[in-house]
């Protein structure tokens, strides 16, 4: 049988891969893809804690659904910003988007 720790290790690995993507990639869309990986790792953790804890308490699944909603909102606003930035600056490289840096 599969113990709880295997799910936690898998989700830790997925989270770290997403974190590397967010920190290392240049392209803004690739950074958003990394954030998706991290949110998905958090969801796997929430659901496995629900399944291995008391299954009558639905908090784990309910908050996984709320994380889905947050991910959808984040992608909608993030990609709209990407399109708006691309329209005005003609680039998607995070290093070149330094308008607010001084």
């Amino acid at each position, binding site marked *: *049988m*599969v*113990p*709880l*720790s*295997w799910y*936690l*290790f*898998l989700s*830790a*690995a*997925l*989270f*770290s*891969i*997403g*974190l*590397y*993507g967010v*920190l*290392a*990639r*240049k*392209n803004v*869309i*690739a950074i*958003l*893809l*990394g954030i998706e*990986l991290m949110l*998905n790792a958090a*969801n796997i953790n929430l*659901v496995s804690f*629900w*399944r*291995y*804890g008391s*299954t*009558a308490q*639905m908090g784990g699944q*309910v908050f*996984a*659904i709320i994380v889905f*909603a947050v*991910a*959808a*909102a984040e*992608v*909608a*606003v993030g*990609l*709209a*910003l*990407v399109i*708006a930035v*691309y329209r005005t600056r003609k680039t*998607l*490289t*995070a*290093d070149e988007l330094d308008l607010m840096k001084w």
Partner: protein
Amino acid sequence: MTAEQIIFFLTAALILVSALMVVTTRNLVHAALWLIATLFGGAVLFATLDAAFLAVVQVVVYIGAIAIMFIFVVMLTRRDLLAKASQTNAGWPWAALVAIGTLAGLVFLSGQMPNAGAQKAALVGDPLVALSTALVSPDAYVLAFEVASIMLLAALVGAVYIANRK
């Protein structure tokens, strides 16, 4: 090895390999397609964890909407960076170091947990019924559910405004 363990290992391999491809591949359309493979592995994990509704939502919302939206935006924006210099910024070894440190810390903390070796208990009742009751019951999570709905509506209106600006 039981069938459950074999399914877990195959799914874990699919998730980790495709997640690594998401963060390393040059072509962003390919990265979005690898993200679909990762999310599908997540749906399989939800199914093995008896969260049937979340497995379906993962396929419908994540793969059906979010990943397709990524592909649309990649195609709407110019494919710069594709043939040119490296995809990673100059500090990528530091990023890898931070990621490996986070992984070591998380694995250590997960191993320290008192119920890390716990096994699945038998399900009490139908979790789908319990989930739908909890989402709309006033003494459970109806407030969080409604706040999430309003946040989603506000985010969609804001996204249309930002992307539509002349």
